[in-house]
């Protein structure tokens, strides 16, 4: 089967912002990162439970992308460590997938949608027949079944971002990192993709770290919301989101708790912008 960790999705304990260390999927321990003398990340610690969805918000330039790149193993912390399932993350790792904001650059323009997904399978030496089947399944899952033979240049932004997600899923990651993945998409596409991602994360049991500018998106998707503060980037507040799942674009967004959270986050962010 494609999905290896089909376990029921473990929710972290209610109201417990930091799960016990033994069961953390990702452990960020006092991480800092400097470019030369300039400190970008100034001491972030965070435990993320398996299956948890963390949303990261914060003003532009506060280090959200940098934090995500460290979780992906693409950037090395200057001090502190990032652990995946108890062992230090030394570099990029197949169990951690990342969806970049600039989908145009992350896709192979000379490969069709199917070819792009297939790349993830070729990387782990998956045999040809199986590759075709899994590719097809992934594209179906993300709603690109009819577009398998299209090149990225023939696809809309939403379709390209779907394709990038499909490739990440083909990687069978334990952790899915997303860097403002829907920032460039229109509102309707965005909501559709939010629901698709929530569905996929729920069925695969993947752990997700989702960076966004959009407060409502953060509340809609997350179990917890990390508010980063700038100069250097550090955790300002952690807000628990106690909204029932599965979430629903209309009902969830009308929930008084949703509106209260939106207000709370808005005030927090406003303070950061002075």
């Amino acid at each position, binding site marked *: 089967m494609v999905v290896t960790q089909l376990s029921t999705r473990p929710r972290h304990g209610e109201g417990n912002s930091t799960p016990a260390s033994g069961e953390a999927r990702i452990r960020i321990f006092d991480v800092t990162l400097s470019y030369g003398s300039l400190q970008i990340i100034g001491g972030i610690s965070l435990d993320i439970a398996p299956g948890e969805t963390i949303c990261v918000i914060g003003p532009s330039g506060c280090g959200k992308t940098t934090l995500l790149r460290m979780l*992906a*193993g*693409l950037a090395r912390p200057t001090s502190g460590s990032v652990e995946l399932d108890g062992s230090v993350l030394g*570099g*990029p*790792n*197949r169990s*951690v*997938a*990342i969806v*970049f904001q*600039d989908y145009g*650059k*992350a896709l*192979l*323009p*000379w*490969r069709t949608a199917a070819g792009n997904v297939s*790349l*993830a399978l*070729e*990387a*782990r030496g998956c045999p040809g027949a199986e590759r075709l089947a899994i590719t097809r399944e992934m594209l179906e899952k993300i709603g690109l079944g009819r577009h398998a033979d299209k*090149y*990225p*240049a*023939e696809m809309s932004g939403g379709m390209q971002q779907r394709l990038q997600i499909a490739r990440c899923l083909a*990687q069978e990651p334990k952790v899915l990192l997303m860097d403002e993945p829907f920032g460039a998409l229109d509102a309707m596409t965005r909501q559709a993709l939010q629901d698709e991602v929530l569905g996929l994360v729920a069925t695969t049991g993947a752990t997700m770290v989702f960076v966004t500018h959009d407060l409502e998106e953060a509340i809609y998707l997350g179990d917890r919301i990390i508010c980063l503060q700038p100069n250097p980037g550090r955790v300002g507040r952690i807000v628990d989101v106690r909204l029932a799942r599965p979430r629903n674009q209309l009902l969830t967004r009308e929930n008084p708790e949703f509106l209260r959270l939106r207000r709370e986050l808005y005030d927090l962010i406003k303070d950061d912008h002075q």
Partner: protein
Amino acid sequence: MKHFSLRKLFLGCGALALFILAWKLVTDAKLVSPIFFPGPERTYAALVKGLSGGAMLSQTLETVQRMLLGWLLASFVGVFLGVLIGVSRRARAFIAPTLELLRPLPASAMIPIAIAFLGFSDNMVLVVIAFGALWPMLLATIHGFAAMEPRLYEVSALLGLSRAQVIWKLALPSAMPMILASLRLGLTISLILAVVGEMLASRQGLGQSILAASRSFRSPDLFAGIVILGAIGLVGSRLLSFAERRLLRWQAVSR
């Protein structure tokens, strides 16, 4: 689409007709002695005679074969060396400036060296062609590798692609537009060097027959040879741009 290319074809033929007309006017007015400068009719007659009589046809085939062999050799060596240099950023920084410096010299500077080692032989001509024509492919591959989208390197690391997979599946395809364009340039250089090589080493082929025609004042034969060379160049470059369009379909859709 179809309409457009038909119009282009029409324009191209029109320009050719004008050129031939001007050629005819100049020769009819006897601006240049007809001994040195035959008109289009005499050239055409020489062409028909040469191609049907057999001598010129076999010489053409010799030259085309020489050109293709040299070009293939140049392409493989050029791309292969380009990959070796292109995969390493350090190798690129180290060698690329030297290559840029050597590039304008090689073909002509190579000939005496090639003669010294290989004598006046077919192999000598082949080496000269390969050495002179590999530069566009070599530099295109190096530049193509350097210009690869950095994000794709990150994607390859995240997916866990091997080094060989990065070369085959990412770097080479992303350098392909540049490499294909360089193949066309390389073919032109191969044709020129094939002819020059034949003249110098007196090997069978159009180069030699053109030289012989000019030495014995058979100017229609000389011009017929030149027309054939032009046609070889045109057909070669057309075939390659056709292949280019097919291989780069993914690019055409984005325009």
